[in-house]
């Protein structure tokens, strides 16, 4: 038998065990329960599991090709507007919600049903194997993939004693052993080790179910939200305080841990040494004042990227930052129509920031402004100002202004970062005589036609915070780590059987033969053979191997 055949044999044995016995029956004669049973065996077969895995891999891909709603609904909206026809079809097939889509869920649920159907019978079977003795010694050990014999000197132990000693040694090597009398007067030991390999396999697969289950728990009980805080502003953990909020399906407001926090200061450090990476961010530090509960002692805490705050398992993350120019808008009557910092959206590496100001209280006309805040402004030859550095070296505001009905009175919710100018009349812009508004801190500008004025009072910084609570993550983490450990056990523990038989040879001396069989992938069987042999030679007076021609085959 060639070595390659050996490997085939070993693998075939394993495959036979792992593949549930498929009844080779014709479909029509099955009847209803028969058909169900047939479908069940199909579903829980190894081939189906493999197919489902491969399908799952393919099914996950579209989620990386198309924008996904959970990650950014506005990007999906843009996509739909730009590709109305294709987009609609993609949407119909849930291509923008791949990971919660019917088809994706169907695939992984089927996979997990298959997994349960596959693993439970295996677990039951293994539980039995754990309680039963190692298998009987096959009659022809020489047919096993690894095999050897030793002949002992007449002074050596009797067959039964030799087998006992071999059993002791095998037990020391981690085998479970059982010594049996042989019908022809000798004795043999059956031994098996590596039961934990199968346990590893089962635990691994069950852990995957654990991961999924706790992900489901998370999606029920978790919540997450966003909040932008300008220096000096505070936040209390209540629903109304969030800018946006995504609750889990079983969320209720009383699940919000009571705490409050405020941004005391924010500091950004940019690279000033590197020629090539000049201006690249190096460090963001937010100093927060956190109050636990409603009457706790306020405490100063440092919040950094990768270092969230943790308040009773509600975690606060620093995910963004930018500038909030402080603005005062006065209306045509000279009254203050808006005053305060305006959060400007960062557009690029040099913090060119988009700014929208709405003053619906302005009289007689409502006022709106849109434009850019530039932390370090530089005006090129074409007269267009751009930002050339993220730091506040030469802050400047460049705005257009509008008057008219801002559309806020109808009660339709609006995006605060977008000014719909369709129904407004332009007051200032590069395309009208009055030109655009350019302001540096401390400056004011009077709007044309006596519509009011705007002043740029100063610049504050703001931070974008994500606030997350997910009680399911501990379970997910536990089962993920358990899966990893079980995987290692299942892949690298070797499960093998060994048999040693002692007989009395024709010349009255003791003959010991032994054989080894791997269950599952086992590449170390050869070494095990040699190890056994070395031990036998150490334990017993072994007759030196004679002329190889005489060796028993």
């Amino acid at each position, binding site marked *: *038998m*060639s*070595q*390659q*055949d*050996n*490997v085939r044999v070993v*693998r075939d044995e394993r*495959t036979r065990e*792992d*593949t549930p016995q498929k009844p080779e029956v014709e479909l029509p004669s099955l009847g209803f329960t028969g058909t169900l049973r047939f479908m069940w065996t199909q579903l829980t077969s*190894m*081939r189906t*599991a*493999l197919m489902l*895995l*491969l399908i799952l*891999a393919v099914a*996950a*891909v579209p*989620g*990386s090709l198309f924008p996904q709603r*959970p*990650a950014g609904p506005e990007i999906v909206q843009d996509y739909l507007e730009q590709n109305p026809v294709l987009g609609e079809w993609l949407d119909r097939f849930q291509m923008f919600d*791949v*990971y919660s889509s019917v088809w994706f869920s169907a695939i992984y649920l089927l996979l997990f049903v298959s997994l349960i159907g596959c693993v439970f019978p295996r677990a039951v079977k293994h539980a039995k194997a754990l309680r039963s003795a190692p298998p009987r010694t096959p009659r022809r050990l020489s047919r096993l*993939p*690894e*095999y*050897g014999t030793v002949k002992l000197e007449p002074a050596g132990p009797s067959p039964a004693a030799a087998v006992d000693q071999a059993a002791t040694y095998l037990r020391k090597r981690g085998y479970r052993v059982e010594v049996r009398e042989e019908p022809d007067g000798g004795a043999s030991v059956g031994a098996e080790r590596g039961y934990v390999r199968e346990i590893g396999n089962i635990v691994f697969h069950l852990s995957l179910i654990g991961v999924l289950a706790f*992900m489901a728990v998370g999606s029920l009980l978790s919540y*997450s939200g966003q909040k932008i805080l300008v220096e000096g502003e505070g936040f209390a953990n209540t629903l109304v305080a969030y800018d946006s909020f995504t609750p889990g399906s079983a969320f209720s407001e009383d699940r919000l841990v009571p705490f409050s926090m405020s941004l005391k200061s924010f500091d950004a450090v940019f*690279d000033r*040494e*590197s*020629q*090539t*990476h000049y201006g*690249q961010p*190096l*460090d963001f530090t937010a100093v927060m004042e956190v109050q636990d509960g409603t009457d706790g002692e306020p405490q100063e805490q440092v919040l950094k990227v*990768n270092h*969230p705050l943790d308040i009773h398992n509600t*975690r606060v*993350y620093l995910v963004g930052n930018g500038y909030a120019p402080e603005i005062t808008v006065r209306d045509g009557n000279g009254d203050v129509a808006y005053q305060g910092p305006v959060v400007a959206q960062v557009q690029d590496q040099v913090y060119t920031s988009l700014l929208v100001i709405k003053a619906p209280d302005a009289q007689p006309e409502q006022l709106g402004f849109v434009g850019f805040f530039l932390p370090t402004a530089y005006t090129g030859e074409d007269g267009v100002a751009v930002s050339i550095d993220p730091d506040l070296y030469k802050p400047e505001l460049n705005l257009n202004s509008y008057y008219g009905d801002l559309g806020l009175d109808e009660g339709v919710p609006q995006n605060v970062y977008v000014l719909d100018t369709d129904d407004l009349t332009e007051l200032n812009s590069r395309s009208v005589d009055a030109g655009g508004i350019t302001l540096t801190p401390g400056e004011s500008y009077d709007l044309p036609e006596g519509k009011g004025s705007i002043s740029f009072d100063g610049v504050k910084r703001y931070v974008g915070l994500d*606030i*997350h609570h*997910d009680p399911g993550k501990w379970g997910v*983490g536990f089962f*993920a780590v358990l899966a*990893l450990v079980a*995987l290692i056990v299942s*892949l690298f523990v070797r499960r093998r059987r060994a048999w040693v038989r002692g007989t009395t040879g024709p010349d009255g001396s003791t003959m010991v033969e032994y054989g080894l069989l791997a269950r599952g*992938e086992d*590449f170390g069987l050869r070494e095990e*053979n*040699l190890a056994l042999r070395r031990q036998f030679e150490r334990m017993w007076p072994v007759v030196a*191997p004679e002329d*190889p021609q005489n060796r028993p*085959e």
Partner: protein
Amino acid sequence: MQPINLQLASYSDLFMLIAALVYAAAFILFALDMANSSKTIRALEAELAADTALEPQAQLVGAGAGTTSHGPGPVVDTAGAGSGPELVDEDMDYLGTTRRPVANVAVALMVIGVALHAFAVIARGLAAHRVPWGNMYEFCTTGALLVAAVYLLFLIRKDIRFLGTFVAGLVVIMMCAATIGFPTPLAHLQPALQSPWIVIHVSIAVLASALFTLTFSMSVLQLLQHRREARIRTGGPARPAFLRLVPSALSLENWSYRINAVGFVMWTFTLIAGAIWAEQAWGRYWGWDTKEVWTFVIWVIYAGYLHARATRGWTGERAAWLSIIGFAALVFNFTIVNTYFPGLHSYAGIPE
């Protein structure tokens, strides 16, 4: 933050280039060795014939015992090739005194290349006071170093010179991709990457990728060898000749399985560590970000590969294809996803 040591950084760049050239030379020599395989084969056959005449039980002496049996007796052509004795060991052990001077020089060049390369990578890390895997250039150069180093480590115990052309070729490609495709001057890490997890998560990911690169080469050879064996069985020509220096398809499959199993464990670790890092950085451990999607896809493909090995009808060629597809996904994840797909993981660091 300590300033960057520009002097050391420029040495690093220089050594990176020299290492790439040395690898290229090794690649050429490995390829020459492959092209010249008929000569090597003839030499080996002669040697083997002499050996067998002198010492008919060479195999058994090697096993250290007269009466253990382990499949085949003395070296015979188990693939049924009918084209003379096997010239390589199925366990990829070194056989006797095989002289393959060209391949040996190539191996020596690989060693030199790795030494220079290791200096370059370490110098880059030291110059910036951080781990040298913070952008695409660094992932690529560190990855290439690990591929070459893992290959040399295997070479100590196993005769896998037959993989040399592939490994040296892939390493040269990675070095070119890094220096031409993503040249990035040395800089500090941006805040998002300043975490101990970059050390753990990325290093294991790169190591796993190095292992998958090796098994990819072995799976390609396995497919070629498989076709050749099939041709021989039907009495066809035993071409290409260099495959006689390559172990049988089955042996390649077994070995790539073993390495893939280790790679898969590391990839599982990468996935979990990545999720933990994501939880610390963004507040959710899994969000189907493009990079996460592809890490998952790769994981599932290799899980499929492990299953295939236990599924009747899926061992052999199909398993090899899965291993190749897994590697293709890995390369895609690294190149296309990093550069063209928007996502939270946009740390490619390629200057605009």
